[in-house]
Every structure is written in structure tokens, then in C-alpha cells.
């Protein structure tokens, strides 16, 4: 079996609930169905790291819930290692493990107790030794006997990851594994996942809205937006697609949304958006020969501190395909 995960034409609809008594009752009896996933198909090869990249609300978590058997699709089917997840979940549940951003471990138990309980439920051998090793690996030895509701967000994520690898899964499913984490813990998590994939040949399926995460970790990426798969390819191939265009980052003294609007209306500008975290305007233009025109336009609004040319990122690719950035905003 060459594929770890096979998703065939999966669709999923949610019922939209209205607020207020009259609208609430109306939506109870005549629910409005909102598509969360629309005819999604893809395959994840054994031993690869496959990423679902898309903004919040794109359908990533719903898709992962369907893949792990937590939700049933309205249409289509999912197979893991050749077994239909909906029909034969018990056959594959011991081979997979998960981390979900909004799920919790038992918070009335300590970190160590949580690992021991899950280890026993997964039938892990030499459990004591394995738990000690994992606590050590994730830097949680000092917190082993602390109740998990006293853990920080980073510690909970590390413990969840320890739980997720306790059974040496063949497939690891991760929903936004670095969301809300400090940069150093984020790096540690990414390193761990890379090593796990390389050394244990674990197939990893993860969702993220951080383009650098998908870029660094994934062998292949599926761009997802509005419940549809936009395109699947390797990060390198994606970036090669926009190599023909030029990307310029301009640090400006004052940001104005009007400036971004004006730039977007220019025919030589492919996309323009403001990178809040670094305080720069990122503009994709069709040719570097138009740089002077671009600078002239910007100078009409604000002073320029510096101008850099930049390499394409997956976010640029995502914008090109969807017209939106990974935060979901129009670009």
C-alpha cells in the first residue's frame, strides 16, 4: 500500500444556527446548509510530510476530523492504509495518533499520568521507560507530576505531542501544531517533526496557516480555501511558479490602507499587502523595471526607509491562486 491517506471526493456541510428565538426555531427545522468541504480529493504517500495550508475557516480542521474518523463525511470516503475510516476505524485507530489545537488532555491528571493512561489504552510496551524518555525529549521532566491545567500553552502542546507519539504511530495527524506557541518552542516542535519523519518514517499530515511552517516541513502542500483544494505541489514547485515575477518589500514610515488600494489598482502590480509583523509593504510586480514607478507611487503617500527585493514565499503563491492572504484578507 503506497498511500497512507486517500481522500475521495469528500464533501461536508454544516447547519448554520441562527440567533434569537424565531430565527433559532426556523434554523432548527429548516437549517441552512453551509459547505465546509466541497469535493475534496488527494492522496498522502507513506513516509511523506503533507501539509494543508489555508486561512482560518478554510476547512482544514474539518478535513482532519474526517480523516481521523471523528466526523463522518456527507459525501465521499477516506481510507487510511487502505481501510475505510468510517467503516473500519477500529482496524486503524492503533496505527494513528493526533494533536488537535482545540482538544485537551485530562486536566485533573498530571502530565505523566496522562501519558501512562494513553500509553496503556494504546497497548504500549515498556511504558514506564517510554514515558520517561518522552518527558525528557520534550523537556517536561520537571513538570511530570504537575496537573496539566497548570501547564502553559507551550507545555500543553509538547505534552500533546508526547501523547501523539506514544504508540509510535504510522500516521501522525496534527491540526495547527504550533499555533500560539513561542518562537523557540515552535522551532523545537518543527525540528522534532522533521526528525520523526526522517528517523521513524512516520507519515505526517498537518494543517497550518503559517506559510513558513509548510515551507520548512512539508514535502507536498495542498492549498485549501473555502472548502476546496486549490492546488497540490511541493513548496519548491509552487515558488517556481511565480519566479517570473519580482517581489519588492518596502519599509515605509507610515502605513495607510489607501496606499495599498492605489497600488493594487496599478496594472504592473500583481498583489500588494502590508506585513504587520515586520512593518513592510510586500508588492509583487511583473517586472523589476517598474520599480521606479512603484517607488514614485509610494512616495506620494509616505517616506520610504528602505527597499529590498525578496524571494517568493508560499503566501505569494496562495495570494496568486486565491486573491487572499493566509489571514483570510483580500489582497
Amino acid at each position, binding site marked *: 500500500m503506497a498511500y497512507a491517506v486517500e481522500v475521495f471526493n469528500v464533501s461536508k456541510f*454544516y*447547519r448554520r444556527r441562527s440567533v434569537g428565538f424565531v430565527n433559532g426555531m426556523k434554523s432548527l427545522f429548516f437549517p441552512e446548509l453551509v459547505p465546509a468541504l466541497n469535493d475534496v480529493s488527494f492522496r498522502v504517500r507513506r513516509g511523506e510530510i503533507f501539509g494543508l495550508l489555508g486561512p482560518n475557516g478554510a476547512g482544514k480542521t*474539518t478535513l482532519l*476530523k474526517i480523516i*481521523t*474518523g*471523528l*466526523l*463522518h463525511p*456527507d459525501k465521499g470516503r477516506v481510507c487510511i492504509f487502505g481501510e475505510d475510516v468510517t467503516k473500519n476505524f*477500529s482496524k486503524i*485507530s*492503533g496505527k*494513528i*495518533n*493526533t494533536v*488537535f489545537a*482545540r*482538544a*485537551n*488532555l*485530562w*486536566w*485533573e*491528571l498530571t502530565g505523566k*499520568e496522562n501519558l501512562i*493512561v*494513553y500509553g*496503556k*489504552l*494504546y*497497548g504500549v510496551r515498556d511504558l514506564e521507560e517510554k514515558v520517561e524518555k518522552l518527558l525528557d525529549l520534550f523537556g517536561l521532566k520537571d513538570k511530570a507530576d504537575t*496537573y496539566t491545567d497548570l501547564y502553559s500553552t507551550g507545555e500543553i502542546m509538547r505534552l500533546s505531542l508526547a*501523547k501523539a507519539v506514544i504508540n509510535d504511530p504510522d500516521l501522525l495527524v496534527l491540526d495547527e501544531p504550533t499555533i500560539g506557541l513561542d518562537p523557540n518552542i515552535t522551532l523545537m516542535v518543527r525540528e522534532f517533526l522533521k526528525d520523526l519523519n526522517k528517523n521513524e518514517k512516520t507519515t505526517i499530515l498537518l494543517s497550518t496557516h503559517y506559510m513558513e511552517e509548510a515551507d520548512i516541513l512539508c514535502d507536498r502542500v495542498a492549498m485549501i480555501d473555502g472548502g476546496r483544494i486549490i492546488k497540490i505541489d511541493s513548496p519548491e514547485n509552487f515558488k517556481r511558479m511565480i519566479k517570473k515575477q519580482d517581489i519588492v518589500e518596502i519599509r515605509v514610515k507610515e502605513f495607510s490602507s489607501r496606499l495599498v488600494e492605489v497600488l493594487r489598482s496599478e496594472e504592473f502590480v500583481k498583489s500588494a499587502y502590508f506585513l504587520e509583523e515586520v512593518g513592510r509593504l510586500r508588492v509583487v510586480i511583473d517586472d523589476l523595471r517598474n520599480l521606479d514607478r512603484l517607488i514614485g507611487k509610494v512616495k506620494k503617500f509616505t517616506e520610504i526607509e528602505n527597499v529590498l527585493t525578496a524571494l517568493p514565499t508560499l503566501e505569494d503563491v496562495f495570494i496568486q491562486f486565491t486573491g487572499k492572504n493566509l489571514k483570510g484578507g483580500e489582497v
Partner: protein
Amino acid sequence: MRRFLKDYFVLQAAEIKKFLRWKERLLWNLMGSVTFFIAFVFVWSAVFAEGFGGIGNLTRETFVVFILSGTLLWEVIGVNLGPVSHVFVREKYMRTSLYFFLSPASRTAFLLAKAGTSLMQILITNVFLISVALYFFDFEFKGSLLLAFLVFTLTFFCFYGLGVCIAALGAWREGIADFSWMFSNILSILSGVWYPVEIFPEPLRSVSKSLPTTQAIEMLRKIGIQGSGLQEILPELTFLGFLTFLFLLLGYLVFRAVEGRAMLIGI
């Protein structure tokens, strides 16, 4: 079966640890039961001191056993309708059940482990209550303790099934807390836990007599006060057994149906 038993023992140990995280819960529960028991013993001794002749099983000689039987059995019912429901809804609300449902562990073992913890809580409270009663008051339990234990066990599983139903259907914690508090209070008033149901007006008495809570409490009183044996309580015991089967089955089916629904529309 081996797998199921293994899962059950793992989950049971975890559930007990989770419960003991807040040991004071046990103390408050214990104090609640003992306070009600002592308060009603004082109330009825004052009433009998004023020359009241008694009603049904409640007499000057038997009132301690009367109140004790009601309080012991109410502990069995109340814990299942209140705290057990809360425990399940909290698992949903805190999203701690998500990882469990993705594991290969048995769902039935999960349900039984929660029942085991609730049973432990009830046994501790009731043993303490009996000790208090034996130390402070003179009373005689006439019937078979084994038969009384059978009534306890059936009542426990009967109301555990009902508790699981309430918990499975409840979507949010506050709603369940309010509903189960109100539901168990109404039942405690109607079931004659601390007074005889004969004091009710006729229509209300008929309602009360038809409740499984009243039947279980009256059965225990028949055993303890009149010394009734299996033959005498067989019709009520059979009915309670039937209800236990029904509510347990209903609890399991509702739990699985809600789990199935959650898989269609999300938790």
C-alpha cells in the same frame, strides 16, 4: 473481552485519580447527606415528642431507620442525576473526550469507569452515614442486608442510565447543572425521602407512588422496618429490575446515538 477488561481497569484507575484531585467534593457530599439525616431525625423526634402517632412506616420506634433508608437511597439517586451528568458534560465541554474517542479504547469501558467512580463516592458517603447513625442513635434494621444491597445496586444502575441520558443530551454545562438540580429536587420532594408520601393529597400521592424513586425507597423501608423478605417485595423488585434494564439500555443507546450525531454534525 480481555481488551475490554484491560481498558476498564486503566480508565477506572484514571477516573478515581481524577475524582481525588478535589477530595473536598467527597467531604461536601458527605456533610450534605449527614446534615439532612440529622436535621430530619431532630424534626421527627420533636414531632413524636408532641404526641404524634405516626403514619405508615414512620413511627416513634422506626423513624430513624425510616429517615436513614431514605437518605441512603437518595444518595444513590442524587449522585447519578447530578454529579454524574456533570462529569460527562464536562468531558464534552472541556474537549477532553476528543482524544479518548480517537484512541482504540472501549467506549463501554469509559461509561463503566465513570459508573465505578460514582459508586465509590456513594459507598464512602453511605458507610459514613451508617456509622454516624449507629454511633448517635438506637435503631434496628430488621430485614436482610443482602436484599437491601440488591435494591441499592439496582437503583444505582437504574439512575446511572438516566444520568447518562441527561448528560448525553445536554449540550452545555450550565444547562445540565440547572436541569439536573431542578429535576433531582422535584424528585426528592415527591419521593418521600425524609417524610412519608401519605402526607400528600391524593392526586400527588398517586404520582409519587408511581415514581421509581419512591418505589425503591419504600422497598428499602419495607426490608428495614417490617423485615420483608424477597417474596414480599418481589413485584416492586421486578419492576425496579425492569426499569434498571430499560434505563441502562436507554442510556447506552442515547450515548451511542449522540456520539453518532456528533460524528455527523461535530461536537
